[in-house]
């Protein structure tokens, strides 16, 4: 009797809750879904209403919220009451121990796996669009991770250094005929030079102010690339950039080309596989150097700077130099990635270096968990791989009709995933900090104690 009454009270409460949410969503969706502007044959704008669609959405939300507050919310509350298991499960320990070796083995074997899986002709897409594209972003993410994740300096103009690297390679290779292997380090050096150049005036700024100035710097570089037409060819970009060779042996169908030299049948796939291993090696170098630097005094000073700048100064650390090295390091890796990007594409234009790129790389770092290299790599895979996967969902056309294009929903899904992750894991996928040194036992440090830095 009493139980039945309690259930009725619960149902009424859920009904009220669902009605409230439905009313809110009605007003929210009224302009978004309910009203549609169209041009008729006379080119006049007419307003049409879509009441059935609007009410079906509101109905879905009403029903969903009702189920949520009646069933799911009490279930989650009950689950939260349960005591947490004291010891971590053996499965978790196993994953923790073997994840990195397995991941390294997988990325090394990836081209072979893909060729085995989808044949010689289908492999190109998987290696190029997925493998190389993701690895470029992994490398950019790791580079920015030094600046944002370790040193705690919010940099919104990171793409500027990527652009400097790409244009350095394109211009020097085209005009002077230098090779890829010479220009790769040179592009890194030039980018870090620009990083230091930017750093000197702006590093006295902190937090939001630093973010705005770096954002402006990113735009300045892009506008220079657009307007310095004599050098950069403006919007039209630079085409015909020399492609990297296999230690002097070009990838072409000639008799002295790569395929002929090694007695293989000519295939454009060989160049792609080669590029895949180049970017893989570059990414490994980035990861290795970062891991090494974290255990060096400079790396600890970066993290100390993120934790408390004033305490750093009281310990005799030159904070200006420390920030500059973080900026230069991050910029250098962006320069490497940029020159690789130019060499891989054979064509670059300012279009590739918009603010959206900076925002994407920053999102990868934040979603991955600031400071965590594995987190950043996972976020890059989810981000870049996710958008590529959307192109593969052709079967959805059979459900939603031939005009349905899943890639159009990229940004919507993107934002939705971001909100979900920020609810569940506000400090990123992997937020636990790994200490750089330990006496007896390596203990992860909870994200509640680490700081995000204030510039």
């Amino acid at each position, binding site marked *: 009797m009493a139980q039945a009454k309690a259930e009725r009270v619960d149902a009424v409460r859920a009904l009220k809750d669902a009605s409230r949410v439905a009313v809110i969503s009605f007003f929210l969706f009224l302009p978004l879904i309910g009203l549609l502007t169209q041009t008729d044959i006379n080119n006049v704008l007419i307003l049409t209403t879509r009441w059935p669609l609007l009410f079906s959405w509101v109905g879905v939300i009403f029903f969903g919220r009702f189920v949520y507050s009646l069933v799911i919310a009490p279930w989650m509350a009950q689950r939260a009451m349960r005591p947490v298991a004291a010891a971590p499960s053996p499965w978790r320990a196993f994953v923790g121990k073997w994840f990195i070796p397995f991941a390294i083995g997988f990325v090394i074997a990836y081209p072979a796996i893909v060729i085995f899986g989808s044949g010689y002709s289908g492999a190109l897409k998987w290696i190029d669009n997925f493998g190389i594209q993701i690895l470029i972003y992994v490398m950019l993410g790791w580079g920015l991770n030094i600046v944002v994740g370790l040193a705690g300096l919010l940099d919104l103009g990171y793409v500027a250094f990527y652009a400097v690297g790409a244009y350095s390679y394109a211009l020097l290779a085209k005009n002077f005929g230098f090779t890829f292997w010479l220009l790769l380090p040179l592009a890194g050096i030039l980018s870090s030079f620009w990083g230091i150049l930017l750093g000197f005036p702006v590093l006295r700024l902190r937090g939001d102010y630093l973010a705005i100035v770096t954002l402006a710097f990113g735009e300045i570089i892009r506008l220079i690339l657009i307007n310095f037409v004599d050098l950069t060819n403006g919007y039209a970009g630079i085409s015909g950039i020399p492609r990297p060779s296999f230690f002097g042996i070009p990838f072409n169908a000639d008799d002295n080309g790569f395929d002929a030299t090694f007695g293989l049948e000519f295939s454009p796939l060989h160049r792609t596989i080669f590029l895949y291993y180049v970017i893989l090696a570059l990414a490994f170098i980035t990861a290795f*150097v970062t891991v*090494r*630097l974290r255990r*060096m*005094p*400079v790396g*600890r*000073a970066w*993290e*100390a700077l*993120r*934790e*408390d700048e*004033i*305490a*750093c*100064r*009281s*310990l*005799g*650390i*030159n*904070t200006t130099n420390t920030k500059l*090295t973080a900026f230069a390091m991050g910029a250098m890796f962006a320069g490497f990635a940029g020159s690789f990007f130019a060499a891989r594409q054979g064509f670059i234009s300012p279009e590739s270096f918009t603010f959206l790129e900076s925002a994407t790389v920053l999102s990868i770092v934040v979603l991955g968990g600031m400071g965590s290299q594995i987190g950043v790599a996972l976020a890059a895979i989810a981000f870049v791989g996710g958008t590529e996967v959307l192109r593969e969902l052709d079967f959805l056309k059979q459900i939603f009709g031939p005009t349905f294009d899943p890639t159009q929903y990229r940004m919507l899904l993107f934002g939705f995933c971001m909100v979900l992750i920020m609810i569940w894991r506000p400090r990123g996928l992997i937020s636990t*900090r790994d*200490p*750089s*040194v*330990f*006496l*007896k*036992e*390596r*203990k992860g*440090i*909870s994200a509640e*104690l*680490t*700081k995000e830095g204030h510039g």
Partner: protein
Amino acid sequence: MAEASDTVLRVEHLTMRFGGLVAVDDLSFEAKGGSITALIGPNGAGKTTVFNCITGFYKPSEGRIALKHGDAALWDALEALTDRGERHFSASGGALFLLERMPDFLVTQQARVARTFQNIRLFSGMTVLENLLVAQHNVLMLASGFTFLGIFGIPSYTAAERASIDKAKFWLDRIGLLDRADDPAGDLPYGAQRRLEVARAMCTNPVLLCLDEPAAGLNPHESGELNELLLSLRDDHATSILLIEHDMSVVMGISDHIVVLDYGVKIADGKPQDVRNDEKVIAAYLGVADEEVAEVEAEVGL
């Protein structure tokens, strides 16, 4: 007890103005080598401002702050150094530094003045051990060839890192936190955080250690332990200590010399027993009866 020998820090006519507010007004005092000098006074008397001037966080409006390493005879070179407009002067017997001319990080790096903060400033997301290694940044940076050599793992850097870990272990043992070396500093209880901050400052090899209210928020047992720690820093490590403190059991118990500030002006300067009985100090701390205000103000010079 070490003999209170020659002067190590000399503050002369220090004045610090923030706009129209005079936080410190024409303050002069000295701190002797191998002794504990306490700086006391009611809230807002300008004690922390003096600390910030000494450690380079503020540039004083006027005045000179000079620090000496080594030989007492070096003080003779002070005027010449001031006139030359340079920051420091080194000779075979030691060195002389004009702290008001140095940026904050050089005050620690070269003049070897270390400090702690009133509101604890540990690197809370780093482990206790890491906190102590960050404090040895400059030594390790040099050993790692400014990172370039260290990244290839040269043996001399590995040895230097091991030495710095040993030093950290020594200090952790001293403050009783060796068991917690691998825990994040932010997880430590309050009293342990205070001790860790002192140990972190000691890892920079200071000649002068400036402690801003190290006993604030400690219980009587903990502040007793702190007293012993500070006395041993003075006696065993030949470190001069400059101390801001409100806890009179600490101040009277361990200080060799006390300077009293009120409204940025020095009102007393002497041995603990003298300061304790000083009328102006009593007036500043306890207040005076209404009819005596004019009399005391005239005496203080207001």
